């Protein structure tokens, strides 16, 4: 199974839209940078058709060090969750799979 990376996304912007290589690379960089900056500013990101990046605050909860069995509280934290949009869900659902899992 292959994975999509920023380099391949930039390549497509270069090939399909004619952005030069530097512009294409910077575009992909700033796309993810701006989404990250927005989330780091505690604001949800909604990309219609693709999905929403939401923020959730988790309360402190009791945890355990799995090695020692010692009780260690897990501090309150803020996490990102992704909710795929309907279009993405529909496109992925029909994937026939490769027998894995």
């Amino acid at each position, binding site marked *: 199974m292959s994975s999509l990376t920023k380099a391949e*996304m930039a390549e*497509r*912007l270069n090939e399909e839209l004619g952005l030069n290589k530097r512009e294409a690379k910077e575009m992909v960089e*700033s796309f993810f940078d701006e989404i990250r900056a927005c*989330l780091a500013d505690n604001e949800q990101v909604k990309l219609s058709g693709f999905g929403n990046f939401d923020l959730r605050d988790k309360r402190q909860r009791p945890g355990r060090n799995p090695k020692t069995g010692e009780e260690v509280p897990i501090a309150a934290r803020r996490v990102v969750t992704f909710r795929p949009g309907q279009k993405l869900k529909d496109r992925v659902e029909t994937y026939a799979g490769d027998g894995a899992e």
Partner: protein
Amino acid sequence: MTKSELIEILVDRHDQLSVKDIELSVKTMLDHMTESLSQGDRIEIRGFGSFSLHYRAPRTGRNPKTGESVALDAKYVPHFKPGKELREQVNDSIQK
């Protein structure tokens, strides 16, 4: 932030490109990501996170209106795992 607000920010950041180029770039990137996932490929963006597919086993569901059982096929759902940098930056924002 919505997709159009993101496009506006990118327009400010890339003043050498036309608005049309930026709109098409965002569409092309999101389509590329959707296409990869729909082929069963992962997406790995360093510092941001990775997208992959999770398998959902077939199950018997119920029509909530009629109570009738419905056989639901196995399927794949998209899953996002935030990268270290994103996770840390988001968690740090809780202090502010």
